[in-house]
C-alpha cells in the first residue's frame, strides 16, 4: 500500500470505530446525542479521506468533479434543510425518505459498476454476486421506503392495500427477479439484464410494502434500514472500499436486532407484520363505532374539572388519539395549570403508545414536558395505586385489560394498570376500537367515566372548567 492509502485505511478504521462507539452511546438518553455526534465526526473523517484518495488518483474529468461536487452540495443542502424544518411528528417519514435515498445511492453504484463492466464478457463471481445483491437490495429498499414514507405521511392510504391477483403478481415478479439474477451472474454482461433486475426489484419493493398497515410502518422502515445497510456493504465489495463494508454490515446487523426489538415491543413478530393486513383501523373513522354499551358512564368537562381540582396526584395516560388530535399543547397547558396549584402531575408512557416507538415522548418533549415527569411502564404501574385521577387521553389498547386474558389480539402485551387508580377519566371521540380492533373493558369499569370528544377540543373544555374550580 502507498503511504497515503495506509493512512486512509487506518483513518477509515478510526471512523468505523466512531460509528460503533456512537451507536453504543445511543443506548441511553444521557449519552445518545453525543453518540450521534461522534458517529458524525467519524463520517466527516471518512469523507475527507475519500477526497484525499480522489485528488491523489486524479482520474476524474472536470465534468466528473463538478457533477460530484454539485451533487454532494445539493444533497447536503436538501438533507439539512429538510431535517431542520420538519415537524417533530413528521420525523418518521423523513427518516424513511433518507433511507430510500440511501438505498437508491447504493443501487446507483451497483448500476454504475455493472455497466462499466458491460462488454459482453462473463463476470467473476466475486464481482457479480455483490453487484447483483447491491442492485436488488438497494432498489427494493428505494421503492419500499418511498411507499413507507407515503403511508407514514398519509399521502398513501395507511390501510393495507390488497387487490385480486396480488399473490399471483408477487410470484411473477419474484420469478422475473430470479431470472434477471441468473442472467447477470451466469451469462455474458448485458445492460438489458440490468434493466430487468432493476425494474423487477422496484416493483417488488412496492408490492412488499403496500399490503402492510400504516401503523406497522415503523417496523418496516427499520427493516428496510437494515436492508440498506446490507446494500451499502455490497457496494463496498463492488468498489473494494472497506469503510462501506464495515459501516454497511454494522447497520445491517444492528438494524436487524433493532427491528426484532421494535416488533417485540409491539408484541408482534416481524413475519406477521410483513405478511400484512393488520392494523387496518388507525380508528381514524369514528363512524365504525359500536353503540355505547349501557354500562358505560358518560361524564362532562365540568365534572372532570372538579375531579382534577380536588386531586392530589394526577396521572396523564396519552395514546394515539393525542397525537391524532395534535393536542399536546393542551395537555401541557392543563398540566402546568394543575402543577401551579400544587397538584402532582405525571405522564404514564407506554412503550408502544401511539404509532411509532417513542411517539409519546416525542410529542410531550415538543411541548417541554420534563423528562422525569414521563414515567415509563414499570414506574408508572407502581404509581397508579396512589393516583387519584388517571386521565386517559386517546389511549386504548395500551390500557386494555384484555391483554391479561388469553386469546385476544393483545394477549401478553404489558399494559398500563390504569384500573388500579382511584378514578379513571377517558377522553376519546366514541366507543370505537384502537389499533388492535378490540373492545376495552376498562371503559365499563366502575371507576371509569367517558368523555366523548376530540382530544384537543375536550382538553380545552377541561382546562376551562379546571380553572374555574382551582381558582375558587
Amino acid at each position, binding site marked *: 500500500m502507498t503511504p497515503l492509502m495506509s493512512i486512509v485505511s487506518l483513518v477509515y478504521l478510526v471512523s468505523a470505530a466512531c460509528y460503533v462507539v456512537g451507536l453504543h452511546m445511543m443506548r441511553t438518553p444521557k449519552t445518545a446525542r453525543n453518540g450521534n455526534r461522534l458517529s458524525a465526526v467519524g463520517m466527516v473523517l471518512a469523507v475527507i479521506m475519500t477526497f484525499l484518495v480522489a485528488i491523489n488518483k486524479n482520474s476524474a474529468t472536470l465534468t466528473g468533479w463538478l457533477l460530484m461536487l454539485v451533487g454532494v452540495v445539493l444533497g447536503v443542502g436538501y438533507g*439539512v434543510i429538510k*431535517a431542520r424544518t420538519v415537524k417533530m411528528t413528521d420525523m418518521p417519514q423523513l427518516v424513511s425518505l433518507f433511507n430510500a*435515498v*440511501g438505498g437508491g445511492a447504493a443501487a446507483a453504484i451497483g448500476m454504475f459498476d455493472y455497466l462499466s463492466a458491460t462488454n459482453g464478457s462473463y463476470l467473476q463471481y466475486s464481482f457479480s454476486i455483490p453487484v447483483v445483491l447491491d442492485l436488488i437490495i438497494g432498489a427494493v429498499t428505494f421503492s419500499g421506503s418511498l411507499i413507507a414514507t407515503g403511508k407514514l405521511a398519509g399521502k398513501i392510504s395507511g390501510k393495507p392495500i390488497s387487490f385480486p391477483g396480488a399473490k399471483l403478481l408477487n410470484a411473477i415478479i419474484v420469478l422475473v427477479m430470479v431470472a434477471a439474477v441468473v442472467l447477470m451472474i451466469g451469462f455474458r454482461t448485458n445492460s438489458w439484464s440490468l434493466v430487468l433486475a432493476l425494474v423487477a426489484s422496484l416493483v417488488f419493493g412496492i408490492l412488499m410494502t403496500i399490503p402492510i398497515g400504516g401503523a406497522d410502518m415503523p417496523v418496516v422502515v427499520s427493516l428496510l434500514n437494515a436492508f440498506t445497510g446490507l446494500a451499502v*456493504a455490497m457496494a463496498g465489495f463492488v468498489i473494494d472500499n472497506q469503510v462501506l463494508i464495515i*459501516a*454497511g454490515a454494522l447497520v445491517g446487523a444492528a438494524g436487524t436486532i433493532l427491528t426484532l426489538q421494535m416488533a417485540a415491543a409491539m408484541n408482534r413478530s416481524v413475519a406477521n407484520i410483513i405478511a400484512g393486513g393488520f392494523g387496518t383501523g388507525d380508528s381514524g373513522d369514528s363512524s365504525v363505532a359500536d353503540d355505547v354499551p349501557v354500562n358505560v358512564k358518560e361524564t362532562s368537562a365540568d365534572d372532570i374539572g372538579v375531579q382534577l381540582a380536588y386531586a392530589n396526584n394526577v396521572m396523564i395516560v396519552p395514546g394515539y388519539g393525542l397525537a391524532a388530535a395534535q393536542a399536546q399543547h393542551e395537555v401541557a397547558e392543563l398540566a402546568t395549570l394543575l402543577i401551579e396549584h400544587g397538584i402532582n402531575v405525571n405522564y404514564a408512557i407506554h412503550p408502544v403508545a401511539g404509532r411509532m416507538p417513542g411517539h409519546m415522548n416525542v410529542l410531550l418533549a415538543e411541548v417541554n414536558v420534563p423528562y422525569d415527569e414521563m414515567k415509563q411502564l414499570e414506574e408508572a404501574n407502581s404509581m397508579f395505586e396512589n393516583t387519584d385521577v388517571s386521565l386517559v387521553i386517546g389511549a386504548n389498547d395500551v390500557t386494555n385489560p384484555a391483554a391479561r386474558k388469553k386469546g385476544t389480539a393483545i394477549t401478553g402485551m404489558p399494559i398500563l394498570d390504569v384500573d388500579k387508580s382511584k378514578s379513571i377519566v377517558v377522553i376519546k371521540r366514541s366507543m370505537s376500537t384502537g389499533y388492535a380492533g378490540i373492545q376495552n373493558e376498562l371503559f365499563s369499569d366502575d371507576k371509569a367515566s367517558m368523555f366523548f370528544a376530540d382530544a384537543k377540543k375536550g382538553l380545552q373544555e377541561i382546562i376551562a372548567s379546571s380553572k374555574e374550580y382551582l381558582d375558587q
Partner: protein
Amino acid sequence: MSQDLYTNIAIFVLSLLVGFEVISKIPATLHTPMMSGANAIHGVVVVGAILIALEAQSLLFYVIAFCAAVLGAINVAGGYVVTDRMLTMFSKPKAQNNADNDKGGK
C-alpha cells in the same frame, strides 16, 4: 479466493458481529432515534458515490454518478441532523421553570 476478497469477507463478518452486539436491550423510547442514527451511518454510501463519480467518462455514467452523489449526500447529512434533532428531546433540561413550584396556592 484472492487475498483481497478474503480480507473483505473477514471485515464484513466481524462488522456483522459488532452490529449484532452493539444493540442490547434498548428502551422503546430510543428505538426511533437509534434507527435514525443507524440510517445516518449507512449514509457512508456517499463515499462510494464520490469514488465512482471520478470514474465517469460519458453521459450515462455522469447521470448515474450524479444521482448517487445527490442521494447519498441527502442520506448522510439529513440523517445526522434529523437524529440530532430527535435527540435534543432527551437532553432537554427542565424547560418548564414553573414545574417545580412548591405545593400550595390551591
